[in-house]
């Protein structure tokens, strides 16, 4: 079957690409658009390493097909920093040592950003609940939660 011709907006840039029916959005991002910041941890929606937002909604890009995103808006980790200026979440993750190997980090950051856009002042419980779909196997979650709380405080100040 012919490939699908898709036009979408990724991190504010208009992109167009061809993809097979069975290719996931994650495959397209990583292999076609060379945006390798989104990671494939499990490929089955358990680990959250491939988290992106699709029209503002947090999704696992391994569970979305490339041909589903025609005309839609995608945000990935690559769109989070503005040039060299890190997003407050990225800055706080560094300061709180909330990462080690870094495979889960893009997913945690994308998911945390989606949380703070909806809930600017989340409780620890809300943060842990929201991030339950992201797995970290080295740092543990305490530092990640404090980094998110600290970033939320910074962002509320403006």
């Amino acid at each position: 079957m012919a490939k699908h011709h898709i036009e979408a907006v990724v991190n504010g840039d208009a992109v167009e690409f061809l993809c097979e029916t069975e290719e996931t959005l994650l495959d397209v991002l990583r292999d076609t658009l060379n945006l390798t910041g989104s990671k494939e941890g499990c490929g089955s929606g358990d680990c959250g390493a491939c988290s992106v937002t699709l029209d503002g909604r947090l999704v696992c890009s391994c569970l979305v097909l490339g041909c589903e995103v025609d005309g839609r808006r995608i945000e990935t980790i690559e769109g989070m920093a503005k040039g060299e200026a890190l997003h407050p979440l990225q800055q706080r993750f560094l300061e709180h040592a909330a990462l080690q190997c870094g495979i889960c980090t893009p997913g945690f950051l994308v998911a945390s950003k989606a949380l703070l856009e909806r809930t600017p002042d989340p409780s620890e419980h809300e943060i842990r609940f929201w991030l339950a779909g992201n797995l970290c196997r080295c740092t543990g979650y305490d530092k990640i939660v404090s980094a998110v709380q600290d970033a939320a405080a910074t962002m509320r100040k403006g």
Partner: protein
Amino acid sequence: MGETLTNGHTQNYIGTRTIRPDGVDKVTGRARFGADFNLPGQLIGRVLRSPHPHARIIAIDT
């Protein structure tokens, strides 16, 4: 700059918080891990699990 210890000595690393050197690359998604490379002619290994416990492998159909 540095941390002053109780004995008056200033330390540049001990007792200070440091930002990991690969941190910025990792929080921006720029860090390149093994799976992020795609080279011409690259071979990719896959795990093929046996559907049978304690079986002898006669052949693998690739």
